[in-house]
């Protein structure tokens, strides 16, 4: 989990000004990003927003995509309904990084 935590730390520091806007948005890592590299070149990120909150999800995703940090974030954005339609989290074994599990 150390590698995932380091990705999360860098991501959250990049979107520090927007953390309060996350609300009920969920963030997941998937693909090669979960493979254990401490500094993967591309970070595959899934952002799931509540149905009807498309623009908030879009705006936050655009902020992450343009982060001027080491990683290149490939952000897939799905509504709750779309995630259920695709069953993406289960099929991709995506790992939730936000909200942080306690």
């Amino acid at each position, binding site marked *: 989990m150390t590698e995932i935590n380091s990705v999360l730390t860098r991501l959250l520091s990049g979107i520090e000004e927007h953390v309060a806007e996350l609300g009920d948005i969920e963030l997941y890592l998937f693909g090669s990003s979960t493979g254990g590299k401490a500094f993967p070149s591309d970070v595959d990120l899934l952002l799931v927003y509540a149905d009807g909150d*498309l*623009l908030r*999800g*879009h705006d936050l*995703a*655009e902020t992450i*995509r*343009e982060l001027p940090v080491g990683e*290149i974030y490939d952000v*897939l*954005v*799905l*509504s709750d*309904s*779309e995630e259920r*339609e*695709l069953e*993406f989290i289960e099929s991709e074994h995506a790992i939730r990084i936000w909200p942080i599990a306690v």
Partner: protein
Amino acid sequence: MTNATISTDGLVRIERKKVSPITVAPLGDRRIDKLIVEAVLAEVLPTAIVLISKSGHYDWDARELAMAKGSTILTVKELYTFMHEADLRPFLDKNVSYNRERLEQHSRIVKCDMICESSLRLRREGSLSDVVIAIEYEYEFSEEATVRAISRHPDADIILNANPNGRATTAAYSHARDARVPIYKISELMGALNYDGDQLRTYTPPKRH
């Protein structure tokens, strides 16, 4: 790539394995047009001007101008993809170049003009109207991907998902239908281009038996 250093003229010099070094001018502009190219090339002559913004564009005529002067414009992805090429200046994203070649072979297409690095205008024969195509590449084409594509290419008539294995969600198709900007794969687009108006926008390929 073996090393990268910033030279005194502001260019990044990239040493490469087995091929000669290149210099790049990274720009943070949202859109690189001819004026920006002229301003850069009046000062320095990099191997490539590189578009850093992931959601940004470079105008195709700006790239042609840069190439005529011995440089080029590349996205970061294009720079990475073709880093091993001795001369990487003429290369274009493979998803775009492949689909442009396919479209140029269509019997109804008279001319295929690039607008930017990921959109093109198709001029069609006879009374068929011109069509602007935005090329995207997504495995899961979501509603947000549709919003982003339309935002990036507000003049687009059609979104082409260049991923042959890509799939769009119900919400993505619904949003695209409301915006009157359909999402097609290349095989669907090749069929749709025989038509105009609603038939162009709502084309469904005939089922195979």
